[in-house]
């Protein structure tokens, strides 16, 4: 599918939106304005933006504890997200969910998830639901290489393949599983080999190449929509920051992340160069989109900080429908 200049600009803008949202989340956390914990998506932005660029607003995604990027890529409102991070009543979850539980059911975001692999069953259920209701909606289930070792993937993947459900299991191989490298915990040589056990095609893509992600996921989505069943996509990328903000990163050499921050590997800079080299963008245009994203984030922070806290009586709201 050909992308217009405006669509390409929007993808670039979204990459920055995610990068800057998480930079802000990190800063706010260090300033003690966030409670609990938060996880940044830095370095993986092209996966979410590339994958969600082929979805319709009524398609579904499930996200992870490292979920800000997926929600923004699907069209989430940065103001309500930031308000949620600050625990405000105007946040997506009225301040009850926080960083790990942002959901926007109106745009098919069935929730970030605090349980590693927690979205796998839900996404598969959304895909099943689409088949029962007779729609052609599809679901993308985002999870990491760490989550690929959770048992529910085996169970849900088997059912998705058996029932030819319209779902893409999108494994982001960011090379780390919580506070350990993921490689020593995988018996298979390549993650896509797991797809064979589920009885579905497995494809590996360079997750830091936005257009490559878009192409591979686009093919998988087309297959799913046509009723041809699920695909297991492995997007190879790198978790540039720690598991959580504040992670001392004692388990990896510091120069490793520096390599992935370099212009050669960084997904935003790679896409920016592509836009200039192949699509006629100017560097001034790119700078403008970057600044626009920064303004959106600044405005989101302002909105969040000015928003009210929930009232004590809200404690009892929404336990049951």
């Amino acid at each position, binding site marked *: 599918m050909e992308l217009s200049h405006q669509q390409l600009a929007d993808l670039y803008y979204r990459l920055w939106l995610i990068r800057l949202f998480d930079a802000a989340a990190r800063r706010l956390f260090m300033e003690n304005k966030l409670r609990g914990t938060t996880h940044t998506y830095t370095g993986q932005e092209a996966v979410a933006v590339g994958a969600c660029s082929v979805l319709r607003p009524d398609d579904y995604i499930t996200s992870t504890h490292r979920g800000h990027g997926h929600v923004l890529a699907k069209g989430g409102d940065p103001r309500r997200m930031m308000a949620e991070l600050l625990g405000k009543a105007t946040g997506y979850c009225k301040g009850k*969910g926080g960083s790990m539980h942002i959901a926007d059911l109106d745009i098919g975001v069935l929730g970030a998830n605090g349980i590693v692999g927690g979205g796998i069953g839900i996404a598969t259920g959304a895909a099943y639901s689409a088949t029962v209701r007779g729609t052609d909606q599809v679901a993308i289930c985002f999870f990491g290489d760490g989550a690929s070792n959770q048992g529910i993937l085996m169970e849900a993947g088997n059912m998705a393949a058996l029932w030819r459900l319209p779902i893409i299991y999108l494994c982001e191989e960011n090379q780390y599983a919580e506070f350990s490298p993921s490689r020593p915990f995988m018996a298979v040589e390549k993650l896509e080999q797991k797809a064979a056990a589920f009885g579905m095609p497995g494809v590996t893509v360079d997750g830091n190449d936005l257009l490559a992600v878009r192409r591979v996921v686009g093919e998988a989505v087309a297959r799913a929509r046509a009723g041809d069943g699920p695909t297991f996509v492995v997007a190879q990328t790198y978790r540039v920051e720690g598991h959580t903000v504040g992670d001392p990163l004692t388990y990896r050499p510091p120069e490793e992340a520096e390599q992935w921050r370099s212009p050669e590997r960084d997904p935003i800079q790679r896409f920016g160069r592509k836009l200039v080299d192949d699509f006629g963008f100017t560097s001034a245009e790119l700078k403008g989109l970057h600044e626009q994203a920064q303004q959106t984030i600044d405005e989101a922070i302002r909105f969040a900080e000015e928003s009210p806290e929930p009232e004590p009586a809200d404690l009892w709201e929404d336990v049951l429908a």
Partner: protein
Amino acid sequence: MRELSYRDALNEALHEEMARDPCVCILGEDVGRYGGVLQITRGLYEKYGEKRVRDTPISEAGFVGIAVGAAMTGLRPVAEIMYIDFSTLAMDQIVNQAAKARYMFGGKARVPLVIRTQGGGGRGNAAQHSQSLEMWYVHTPGLIVIQPSTPYDAKGLLKSAIRNDNPVIFIEHKLLYNTTGPVPEEPYLIPIGVADVKREGSDVTIVATSRMALLALEAAEQLAAKGIQAEVIDPRTLKPLDLSCIIQSVQKTGRLVVVNEAPLTGGFTAEVTARVQRQAFDWLDAPIMQVAGADVPLPYNGRLEMAAIPQVRDIVDAALSVCYREA
């Protein structure tokens, strides 16, 4: 009125709700072609086909997770977990996902999910097929927990559970499927969260859940022969609990026995006891008695198993004791 078995009453509820609402679907092991290990889903696959009546692999976490996602996206799934003991395999899906989604997402999510399962012991199924785990779910905010004791309650409550917009843990009892009772031909619903006075009496209140309600009624017969009129209350819904029905009865009788099949420690009887003493302390004429299961895994041997599960005699003895009468 016609008589139906507990099994047939449940089956009829599913037939009626699937006919009424195309969003109702069934998932579970052997629920389709075979009709369910307990035949509760028989006839549904033939009528509604495999999309709405899904035979799943033996994958409790997987199919319950799928049911949660389906519920969040417009369906009303009824998932059957063959034994409540197997619900442990789906704990993340039930406790972390289904129960939390609404609150955690700020009230936007709706999870109209029913998990049907069988609990309880007494049939020699031993430690991993006999448990009474209802309180695990009662302890989880965001879930509704129902345990019907009669065919009439089973049908009316299952229909209400399917129409409810929250995740419901619907626990049947393995020794009740062949019991029979009156069930009207015309459709009816029983509201969730409303207890039922199964027998009126003035001397002692016996609150008993699931199969224990039937044992309490037997106990009440024996007590009547001794001149004690017991009032038997079946909460039917453990959460939300109809405490006011229990309090009203205690205000009349001044004495309370609470019966639950699950192990005593941290259980239902302790919860009811604590709440009643707080709200009706001035009306109590005797300490509240708890009759509950032994704090042991359920043993296989029949003699041992009966010793681990409350019996009619235990309820009679407890009632006599709160009435300060000799056994």
